[in-house]
């Protein structure tokens, strides 16, 4: 099996990997310095990642005010746990976005717990239509590459991955929404992600 040391995708435009020029630092460097209490380093880390973090939060929770709260909480967590980040376990951007996603999902699930379940089901379930936030998405090469990879998924794989990652639904809910057995939903999610992983060269 591969070693996570090899899991080092290059994020779009962010100065991860080889520093370009003399000034830019890698994201993991910045995070390391943040762990030593360097707020300026954390500000740079924020600047290099905040569009992705906020965009992801917004896509999942949809409400801009909630997305801001989620993003802020996630960065605060990232600051606090910057001392625990280990670059050998994965990229700094991936680490941050994992925190953001978890918080975004927690947010919508706890909000929904307060609402009658039946009402919740009635909100729109078509993930594709919501994808048009891309108007604001920065048209980086990396984003284009990711979109290209997503486009090669089968329709059912893409649907399952988008409903879970962007829709924040559990796999059980996805199975219900798509009217397929749970095992099928599980497989579509995993197969879709594995295909993306291979296409994007995330594994070694």
């Amino acid at each position, binding site marked *: 099996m591969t070693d996570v040391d090899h899991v080092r995708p290059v*994020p779009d435009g962010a100065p991860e990997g080889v520093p370009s020029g003399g000034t830019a630092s890698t994201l993991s460097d910045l995070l390391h310095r943040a*762990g030593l209490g360097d707020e300026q380093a*954390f500000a740079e880390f924020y600047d290099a990642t905040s569009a992705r*973090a906020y965009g992801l939060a917004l896509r999942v929770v949809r409400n801009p005010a909630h997305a801001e709260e989620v993003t802020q909480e996630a960065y605060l967590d990232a600051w606090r*746990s910057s001392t625990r980040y280990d670059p050998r376990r994965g990229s700094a951007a991936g680490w941050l976005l994992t925190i953001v996603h978890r918080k975004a999902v927690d947010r919508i*699930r706890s909000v929904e717990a307060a609402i009658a379940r039946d009402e919740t089901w009635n909100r729109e379930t078509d993930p594709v239509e919501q994808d048009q936030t891309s108007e604001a998405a920065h048209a980086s090469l990396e984003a284009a590459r990711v*979109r290209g990879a*997503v486009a090669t998924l089968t329709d059912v794989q893409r649907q399952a991955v988008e409903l879970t990652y962007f829709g924040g639904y559990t796999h059980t809910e996805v199975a219900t929404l798509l009217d397929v057995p749970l095992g099928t939903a599980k497989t579509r999610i995993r197969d879709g992600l594995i295909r993306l992983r291979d296409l994007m060269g995330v594994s070694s």
Partner: protein
Amino acid sequence: MSDMHQLTGAYALDALDELERARFEQHLAECEDCRAEVAELRETAALLADTVATPPPASLRDSVLAGISQVRPLAPEVPPATPATATTVQPATRRPWVPLLVAAALALIVGVGAAVTQPWADDVPPPTAAERVLRAPDAEEVFLDLGDAGRATVVRSKAENRAVIVTEDMVSAPEGKDYELWFQTPDEAMVPAGLMKDDPDQTVVLDGPAAEAIAVGITVEPDGGSREPTTPPIALFDLTEAT
């Protein structure tokens, strides 16, 4: 490859419910293949954020920077100085993304096991609050099988005005979460009744009077618990059907 292995994708996308997640995290602690795959799939999922990147309002930057200036980064994880028990710690092969709770839970179990040998030395101690409920002549109980997540029984004595929950093989609460107990009152309000420990087999006396309660619930809450449930219960013991 176990069936659990199929859950790497859903786990990486935060698409498991709390119980499934807790169960899968226990599996992760033991399955290196799954850990590696989860790490890769999380990296992959994070790339999807590129496609929705949206510049946040400038005010957010100020809030974030103001926020961090008031908090110290956590102390780093320090490997134990000497391998006192020589069995567990191997920093070089530290697992990616694995919940620390599993280790913490194991430590707790070991600790508890070591502690219980002592009390037998003395005379029979007075019954604990839990024992009084469990032995009460009017004790009534509701058993729930939570499948892979374990089993739990709630015992209530109206005479003692207390209820106790006894768990067997219960999975740990997910990382960063606690199981919280609740009494459901006759008007269907949920009243907090304390947090459960991170221990698969435990006996907990619920906080608060139990005589009037119509049910006992367990929910998964952020660490430290909540004043009212933020998620639907993972288990609800209907005391009106207690036997």
